[in-house]
């Protein structure tokens, strides 16, 4: 039995040792906004925050989360970056977008007006095969926290 705090909700659940946080979020808690695109920590689609820090949930073992607060895209649905992404057209197929927004929201929380280089540095681990990068940069730049 493990305890998890996800988006302010406390959960108690059974999880086999070795399961990833991403799988538990998606399959046990039904939080399917977190996407798994590579399953080995290379693409960033599965990004969630632990105590506000972006981590790759597909290579985070659920038993290592402990008391840290998990924030997924479901906890950020009303974040102003969502509107900024849509207004700038910073998404195409949208499969990477929840992960992009989770990473970007951690960035602007730590640094409300990041420079272009700071945006590129923070976002470089979130791949987008559709190539929405210019619009992602625009969305984050345009949003004044």
């Amino acid at each position, binding site marked *: 039995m493990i305890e998890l705090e996800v988006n302010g909700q406390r959960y108690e659940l059974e999880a086999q040792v070795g399961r990833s946080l991403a799988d538990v979020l998606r399959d046990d808690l039904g939080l*399917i906004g977190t996407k798994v695109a590579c399953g080995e920590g290379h693409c960033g689609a599965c990004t969630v925050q632990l105590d506000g820090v972006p981590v790759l949930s597909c290579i985070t073992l659920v038993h290592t989360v402990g008391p840290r607060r998990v924030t997924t895209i479901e906890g950020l649905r009303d974040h102003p970056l969502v509107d900024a992404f*849509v207004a700038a057209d910073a998404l195409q197929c949208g499969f990477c977008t929840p992960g992009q927004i989770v990473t970007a929201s951690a960035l602007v929380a730590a640094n409300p007006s990041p420079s272009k280089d700071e945006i590129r540095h923070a976002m470089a681990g979130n791949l987008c095969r559709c190539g929405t990068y210019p619009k992602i940069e625009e969305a984050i730049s345009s949003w004044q926290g």
Partner: protein
Amino acid sequence: MARLIKTEKEVEGRYTEQWIVVDEDALDQWPEGPLEVVGREVPRIDGHDRARGLAGYTADVRLPGLLQAAVLRSPHARARVKSIDLSPALAADGVRAAVGPDDIEGLTDEPAYMGAAVAAVAADTFGAARAAIDLIDVEWEELEPLLDPDEAVKQGSLLDESVTYERGDFERGLAEADAVVEAEYRTQVVLHNSLETHQSIAHWEDGGLTIYISTQYIWGVRAAVAKQTGLPEDKVRVICLAMGGGFGSKNSPGDYTPIAIELAKRTGQPVRCALTRREENVAAGNRNATIQRITAAARADGTLTALGGEFVNAIGFSGWSSSTEGPMQMLYACENMRTVKHSAKLNLPPMAAFRAPGFVEGTFGLECLLDELAAKLDIDPLELRRRNYADSDRMDERPFSSKQLAECYRRAEPHWQRRNEVRASSSGPWKRGVGLASQIWYGGGGPPSYAWVRVGSNGHAQVVTAMQDIGTGSRTAMAQIAAEELGIPVDHVHVSLGDSARGPYATLSAGSSTIPSMGPATRSAAADAKRQILEIAAQRFNLEERVLDLKGGKIVSADGGAWELTEITGLLEDAQILGNGARGPNPTGMRVLTFGVQVAEVAVDVETGEVRVDKIVAIHDVGRVINALGASSQVEGGIIQGLGHTLSEERLVDPHTGRVLTQSLDAYKLPTIADVPEIVTDLVDVPDPHLTNLGAKGLGEPPIIPVAAAVANAIRDATGADVRSLPISREEMLKALREAEAKKRVPVGTASS
């Protein structure tokens, strides 16, 4: 009236002749330029759902009792399965069924490439399925793979017969030339790597079969599954509500769909078969490698006298042979031509269409060679292209339905004129330069394609059609088109798509065809609904129908009268106005194509071989633009994929065993946000006067086509080095610089080539 015609249908440059029933396109095109909604910047109508993680991708579908499949894929490039025993897998915990080579088509005991599917199991969890795959007892007999494309051509291992195309007299063209350039260009294998991997769920229910699948072609999957299972097509329902990218690789059911269907049948439970990322990098299709041995010849004034060459498509074990020679045949008005294409069949993973297949590769060769020719003739490369401008299609002498390439060149001029300034900004080891390349491609779409529009008592409209939005924003484009025609705000239009049981046939989303095929059908359906609304309004208000129109959410009359739309629709309570629309025919006897030019500014560190692209200006003619915002995103996305193709992406294979070495996203280098240059998009936005009721062509593919050539030409401008092989890694760049150095040292007149 419906009309039966025999017509050419084009997808990705492949033409087939077929009978088609078309409805006459009775609507006049809208005037040129941005309208109320069409042509404006409209954020995607499903953007919030996607951004918030609410959109339901195939990967997110959860069904009661859903089992997970895993696939045993051949680790060998060529082998025979001497024996296979599934029973240890079947006995494992949680495993519900297993299938092997004898059970279904698509599983093989003679794998001819690494990644060919041999067996599969379904289990309660994906982990259990994967573990069970390792328990399958297989005895392989490894066989010698054929991996070299030139060797395959020599041995006659061909996917298709070689194709020779000739016009004029190639030899005479060479003889008449003042300058001839010959070179060998090579392009590599690149992988689509859509972030949602290829996958489907098969669910036998209600006496039929429901397939949830990440696909670019709902109706193609429906037909293929009906054929596989023997079910009537209407017993097969195919659903794809949101889709995580395809780029050409998801046009068919693949091997995973038949596997899921059979395992679901055997277990009586729904089964998901989803590729892992590593399977995706091996078995999900690729852009095949090419070798292009090409020649260009011209008179001193730049007039091309001959173009030709030998093209080898290194295709892998299956797929199809795209037109790598197409740009050479179509882009310029050259009288004398001879191209030969060989389609090498190799023991390597299959080719699948990838965003402008053939033309991306062929444009790299052709447009670089043209710059080599320009240098030899000492003619400005843009001027050389203008002097060889094609006024009609030289393949079959048909007029173009529209061609704004000259306007693209005109708009490129100021960006091109920057090259002295850019060159002069070189400093230290960083040499800077500017290059350009032209683009030609298909993108006209075609019939059949249908849409329905229903208008309810609240005056809102719903577009219903079983097309798919693969991430390009076609859902939003349909809403804009219906809103424009009905004179209502775009947020009063909803779009239902992605389900073959809910709506009529729609085209596949490939070949830049969704908007030019589906857009006119949607407009036609909206116009049918509008006509009915005006007929009812005319009766209600005792006015002639011809004086009425729909504008700004109101019914307006020529004499200044205005009534809320709901005054009419509201009369109807639960009744609905139902509009029916179809895509009309393509213009007879004309060639419908897209055009463009891109200008690249690059910096090359001649000491390290690092290439940095600073800026790309993309100017394209795709007819009318529907969504200016989404269109700029398509252009940026195409260019960024093109930059990956140009600079970093390459599927590597062990040259002895044929095993794929780049299976994960740390080994296969996709572009990141840090790799993106400044991108300037400029779309000519003039409707094609001959094409449908919209005059809109497709935009998905054109922007990726000229990227590699524009960058390579800019590198030549910066450094004098000819890069003739993709990707332009540092190693490749340094090699080209060394060759350029060596060429400079050889006294003029003694060079061997």
